[in-house]
């Protein structure tokens, strides 16, 4: 109900006076002080004055001239309120307290304690570093890795939890809301959003800097070494969680506190104004990683990134739930899918790389090839990540599933592996191509025995690694494990044949006896030849194979025992039957150089991996 004209006129004039007094373009004093920093009474008076002017705007009974005065007053008031609004916001714009910067769901990682004021350092846990160390750098598949026991894998899958904090104290929020209300109802919505957005956005930017979120271009990222990128990815994962779950969520809450109910979706508009840029900046990093060139060592960090982003998607959907923020949800989903694709692509890359790994220099002593170690460590880690990879890897390996007749790839019948997950099939395939590659390498040894020993060592290593990891074993399956075991046993047999058949041939009976005659019936010359051959061969074998290596002590023992079981009895029996013939002749020491004990001792040198120059234990005479 409108007050009677005279009172209305008076009320308006009073209000107008107050507005004009605070016209910042008009007086020094008005410029120097801020209403909302001063006396609360003054604040109330001012706001009432604004309300009064607004009432006058809708009054019908005023002349054009008066309309002009009213409009003018409104504009002055709005300009003033805009400055007050900005001022309140700025006074309460401290970058988010660093205590609040811990990951809300940091139950998984050992809590990264952050000292106030310090930027989030890259305090990678020891576990993470060990994990990374077991994957070789770059594309060099030949890096010699030590056997790292499967480190405790820290999952990036955690339960989501949004944790909003109050960015601005509630009395300030109250003031902001009072101002916003009046600005919006006077039609100055746009100005309000602009001021709000620009101040809050710089607050978010400052928080970003504290979180260590860098602005890197795609070009920058392509140029960085992968190790540096791993560090940045780790940091990004931590920062992204805080950004989405705390920082952005809190900004959203603030918008709601100030603008909810003051108009349609104004809080959404202000929120997007504030965070759209920073959100894009945040995601651009993950996007750049997802499109970087694929190479095997990137797999696990990419999976980490994938998992953490997947974890965040529900929170992203909640925080960015309005229509205007659709593009952000879309971008996050796109990045996730690219990361998945990248992971699949890298797995493929890896398989190719294993198949084609071209080094030809034979590993001295026939021991474990660095490729074997690398691959087995790699797939061990893959089995750690099987939860994610089982979801991502849905198709069988693309090569080798048909009997292509291509000599450069092994054949494999996948039908035997029905019922296994695609990931498991991939792992088996990887082992198949590893062996295939190793077989190629084994041919570079000039000595066939060494080729077999090499294969035995390496396949045995594969078996040990599979047995040593329950996840891996479960995926590979005992059937295939049995096959592998058979393989290395067969290699052992092949080795023995290759080396010892001819040695033992020297100790055979046939050809030594001469028929007829009163003499013992043994050809002395043939016998001497036999002894000489045996000695030469054995000495050669001893000298050579002492430099060969079987790293696994049990396997080493077994093989030595197996050799001894054939060699010692044969020699003992030979010696027993024929030594008298030699000893009855001249220079028996030229022919009988080894006692049974000598042989037994010398066998202990086998596969010790002695350096070739080392003086071997002299056999006693």
């Amino acid at each position, binding site marked *: 109900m409108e007050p009677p004209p005279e009172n209305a006129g008076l009320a308006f004039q009073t209000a107008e006076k107050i507005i004009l007094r605070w016209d910042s373009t008009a007086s020094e004093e008005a*410029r120097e002080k801020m209403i909302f920093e001063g006396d609360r009474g003054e604040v109330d008076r001012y706001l009432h004055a604004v309300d009064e002017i607004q009432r006058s705007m809708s009054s019908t009974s005023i002349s054009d001239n008066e309309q002009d005065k009213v409009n003018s007053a*409104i504009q*002055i008031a709005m300009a003033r309120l805009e400055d007050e609004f900005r001022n309140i916001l700025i006074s309460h714009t401290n970058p988010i307290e660093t205590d609040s910067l811990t990951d809300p769901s940091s139950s998984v990682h050992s809590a990264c304690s952050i000292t106030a004021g310090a930027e989030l350092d890259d305090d990678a846990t020891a576990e993470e570093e060990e994990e990374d160390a077991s994957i070789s750098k770059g594309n060099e598949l030949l890096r010699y890795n030590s056997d790292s026991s499967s480190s405790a894998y820290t999952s990036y899958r955690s339960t989501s939890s949004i944790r909003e904090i109050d960015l601005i104290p509630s009395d300030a929020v109250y003031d902001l809301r009072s101002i916003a209300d009046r600005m919006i109802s006077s039609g100055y919505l746009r100005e309000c959003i602009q001021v709000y957005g620009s101040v809050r956005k710089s607050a978010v930017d400052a928080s970003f800097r504290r979180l260590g979120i860098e602005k890197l271009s795609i070009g920058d990222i392509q140029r960085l070494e992968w190790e540096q990128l791993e560090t940045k990815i780790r940091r990004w994962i931590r920062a992204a969680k805080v950004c989405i779950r705390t920082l952005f969520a809190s900004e959203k809450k603030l918008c709601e506190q100030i603008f909810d109910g003051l108009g349609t979706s104004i809080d959404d508009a202000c929120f997007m104004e504030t965070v759209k*840029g920073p959100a894009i900046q945040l995601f651009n990093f993950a996007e750049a990683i997802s499109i970087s060139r694929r190479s095997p060592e990137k797999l696990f960090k990419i999976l980490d990134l994938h998992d953490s982003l997947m974890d965040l998607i529900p929170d992203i959907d909640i925080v960015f739930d309005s229509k205007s923020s659709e593009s952000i949800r879309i971008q996050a989903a796109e990045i996730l899918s690219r990361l998945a694709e990248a992971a699949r692509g890298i797995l493929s890359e890896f398989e190719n790389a294993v198949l084609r790994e071209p080094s030809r220099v034979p590993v001295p002593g026939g021991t474990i090839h660095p490729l074997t170690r690398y691959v087995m460590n790699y797939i061990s880690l893959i089995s750690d990540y099987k939860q994610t990879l089982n979801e991502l890897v849905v198709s069988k390996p693309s090569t080798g599933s048909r009997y292509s007749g291509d000599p450069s790839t092994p054949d494999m019948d996948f039908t035997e592996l029905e019922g296994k997950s695609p990931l498991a099939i991939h792992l088996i395939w990887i082992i198949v191509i590893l062996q295939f590659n190793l077989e190629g390498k084994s041919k570079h040894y000039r000595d066939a025995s060494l080729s077999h020993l090499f294969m035995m060592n390496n396949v045995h290593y594969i078996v040990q690694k599979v047995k040593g990891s329950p996840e891996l074993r479960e995926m590979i399956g005992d059937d295939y494990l049995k096959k592998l075991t058979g393989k290395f046993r067969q290699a052992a047999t092949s080795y023995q044949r290759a080396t010892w058949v001819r040695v033992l041939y020297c100790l055979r009976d046939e050809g030594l006896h001469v028929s007829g005659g009163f003499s013992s019936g043994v050809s002395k010359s043939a016998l001497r030849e036999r002894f000489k051959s045996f000695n030469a061969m054995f000495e050669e074998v001893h000298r050579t194979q002492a430099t060969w290596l079987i790293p696994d002590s049990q396997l080493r023992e077994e093989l030595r025992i197996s050799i001894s079981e054939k060699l010692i009895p044969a020699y003992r029996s030979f010696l027993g039957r024929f030594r008298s013939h030699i000893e009855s002749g001249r220079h028996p020491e030229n022919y009988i150089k080894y006692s049974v004990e000598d042989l037994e001792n010398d066998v202990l040198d086998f596969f010790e991996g002695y350096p070739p120059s080392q003086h071997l234990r002299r056999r006693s005479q």
Partner: protein
Amino acid sequence: MPATDYQGSFLGRISIRRNQVMAMEPNSHEQEVEDLELFQKHVSDRFSDLLSPPSDDSSPSDPLLSIAWLRKLLDMFLCCEAEFKAVLIMDRDPSQMTRPPLDRLVPELLERVVKALDICNALCLGVDSVRNVQKLAEIAVAALEQRPIGDGQARRAKKALNSLITAMMLEDKDGASAKSTERAWSFGRRGTSSTSAQKDRTAGLFRSPSCNMAKNWSAAKQIHAMSSNLVPPRGAEASGLASPVYIMSTIFVFVMWTLVAAIPCQERNGLGTHFPVPRQLAWAQPMIGLQEKIAEEWKKKEKKGSAGLLEEMQRLEKIGQSLIDFADGFQFPVEAERLEEVKTQVEGLADICRKMEEGLVPLQQQIREVFHRVVRSRAEFLDVLDQAGRLTAPTV
């Protein structure tokens, strides 16, 4: 928008799926030459369209460097890119990529592609800053559409338009210049800010949103780097696959350069205007024509010191200045004649805002689409290179 204006025999044979063996007769050399010629022709035709679009009464052509025109440019780019991929990857023996001259040219192209991706990101940010300008203009429109136009409206419009003009200037300087922030306040003219607290408050406020790329990243430098090594193939090479690679590289450079000239993005100072494409190349004529026109505008802009070449922004600036003058000399009430003038200008302003409101978000989406498409193509090229068994260059 899908690419729909293929002509000739291409569409029937395009299948860009990898690992798919085409059950067609192997490409004879003749066929290859025909493909290359068709590609050239299409490129030439498309750029002709852009340079002097066929206009009829029902649909007047879009002005050069307007939002609608830029969207056409992007569409055309996508068409060319798709055709290029078909020419180079489809039905080809991957090992061709690892032989000269492709072994050098393809990795170079991929390097340019990475730069283009960053430019796309910068452009998206740039479109955001255009939206900011749009919102300021909308304030002025809202103010000046009121009747009667009073002191209040005039001041309000002036404030918004001053911020607008400042924002447009800001794009061409190095980001957060503290001086300009004082515009954002109603008080605190330059130098008269009394308290230091106020000074602190002004600093760093009115930062241009387009300056959110990495520090030291410069659109101008990226374009410059992209155009290095852009050398047309000579002699025997010109009739082989080196030719489409060169054409596509040129298109990349041209399109990115045009977009950077039009849309504000980080650090355009020093944007070159020389286009390293020889004039004799027939297919390049329309492109060169366009480039010259735009370059001329750019040079004019550098002299005047006014903001980017986006047609709507240019118009906005003009009308904005004029309305600022109006607001400066404002006296209530406004005489009828002047009012009519202002009314027309405000309608012009409103029209631009409308075009921006309709066109800017789709423009951004298109830029993102270009981004995605280019990422995908790059991945396919990298795959082919890897397939060929060798990594030809240490590019990432």
